[in-house]
């Protein structure tokens, strides 16, 4: 009789690799191969469903059957390391880039889905950022900047409307999205390069001076853009540090 370690190693390998189970089983009404297939279907099905919940826009774009296939392929190669399936599949966007090269925009759509999902898993609280000793910013701890090369936000907005999707300009070009949680919702808005650079630097704990220099490197009009896109945004509050 193999010990528990050997059983679990072989069983796990048989499930993911499709190997034959090399462990003696008692007679039953279900063959070992069929029993293993039930577990294989459950495991892969659960992972595909987890990916579908995290990547709804990708699912909607490629259709259920194709999503099932590519997600199952991903799951077999990248099984989760923990029981927490919310948060499973961070590598899916890069996997799509390799597996579905003809849909160049798909990885960016996946990156947006991932950002939205992670944002919904963040606390609905604010962080305080001291700008210069007298002025503070407050914005959601969930706020992130997503750097994309395709119009993922526009694609997501047009899902279900084939006519709208057909006329989208898919020409690759740098673009940025701010993503944050507001109550039960996750919000997005486009950001200019200076505003994105400013938020990025603040989130990287580089301080206000570095953040402003990063923004000004993009445009002499950076202060105006930051003011309108960040300071005046509904998610942001400016306060007096004193």
């Amino acid at each position, binding site marked *: *009789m193999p*010990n*528990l*370690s050997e*059983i*679990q*190693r072989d*069983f*796990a*390998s048989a*499930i*993911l690799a499709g190997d034959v189970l090399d*462990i*003696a*089983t*008692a*007679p*039953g*009404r*279900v*063959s*070992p191969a*069929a*029993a*293993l297939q*039930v*577990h294989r279907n*459950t*495991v892969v099905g*659960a*992972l595909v469903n*987890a990916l579908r919940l995290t990547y709804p826009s990708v699912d909607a774009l490629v259709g259920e059957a194709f999503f099932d296939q590519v997600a199952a392929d991903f799951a077999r190669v990248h*099984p*989760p*390391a*923990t*029981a*927490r*399936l*919310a948060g499973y599949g961070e590598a899916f966007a890069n996997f799509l880039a390799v597996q579905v090269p003809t849909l160049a925009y798909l990885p960016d759509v996946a990156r947006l889905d991932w950002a939205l999902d992670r944002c*919904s*898993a*963040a*606390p*609905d*609280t*604010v*962080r*305080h950022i001291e700008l210069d000793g007298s002025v503070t910013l*407050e914005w959601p*701890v969930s706020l992130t900047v997503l750097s994309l090369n395709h119009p993922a936000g526009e694609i997501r907005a047009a899902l279900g409307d084939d006519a709208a999707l057909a006329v989208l300009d898919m020409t690759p070009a740098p673009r940025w999205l701010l993503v944050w*949680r507001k109550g*039960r919702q996750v919000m997005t808005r486009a950001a200019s390069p200076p505003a994105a650079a400013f938020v990025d630097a603040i989130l990287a704990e580089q301080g206000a001076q570095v953040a402003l220099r990063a923004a000004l490197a993009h445009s002499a009009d950076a202060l105006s853009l930051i003011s309108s896109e960040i300071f005046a945004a509904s998610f942001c509050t400016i306060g007096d540090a004193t």
Partner: protein
Amino acid sequence: MPGRAPQPHAAHVAPIPAVAGIGLRALHHDHVLANPGASAWLEVHPENYLGEGVAADILIAVRERYPISLHATGLSLGSVGGVDADHLSAIAELCRRIQPGLISDHLSWSAANGMHLPDLLPMPYTREAQDIFARNIETVQAALGRAILIENPSVYLAFADNEMHEAEFLAGLVRRTGCGVLLDINNIAVSAANLGEAPTARLHAMFDALPAAAVGEIHLAGHAVRDLPDGSHVAIDDHGSPASDAVWQLFADAVSRIGTRPVLIEWDTEIPAFDVLADEAAKADAILTTEVRRAEFV
């Protein structure tokens, strides 16, 4: 440093009453929040509510209106590598926040070789495996500061070198760790069908091996039966239909043997309208009520 808003905390554990409750899935979050009293109690998979995101906030709101039981699927209590400390810590934090009336997981394993396979994989019923399982239960109970319930799983195969029956394996865990048992009646039916046993005999083996007081909760669910290419059939624990007549009969048998317990209606695939679940719960309550009356009469 990120700021941290005060989080609501339930002040006390709300005990799970010995009546029917319903397994809460995301589809019905809004319904139970908008209709307090929609169920006597609710059970959730904690893995779906860890952390401080939207899902956790929803569960806290639900907890303010209902007693909650946590039914874990990912502790992997049978893993030879032990319990994932980070995952256990997250579960413990969720317990601290919502103070569940019951906490349970399964007689199974999911983690091996650095991977987590989201299924309830079968244990060999050996003394070595029982030692490891007992050690893992003790780790979890120490972290949570309370006893947990262990659910008998649906199995599709049995290992040839098993040294004891599932009921004996469970009974040993109860004796050694003080844990309780979550008796899943549907799993009794599914396992019996797949292993070629009589469902009633499998159920009675549980009662023969276990003290009645060890059973802290009962689960009811539906299962599917699929044809296999070799002409045989496999019963699959898919929780995608009403409990079968056979499961209801086993449930009545169980209640007549051990008395009333919290009973959960589980439905995880092809999830119907909440009213359908409520009807199943009412059916279970009717059987529980009959048992109460019978016990009073006796």
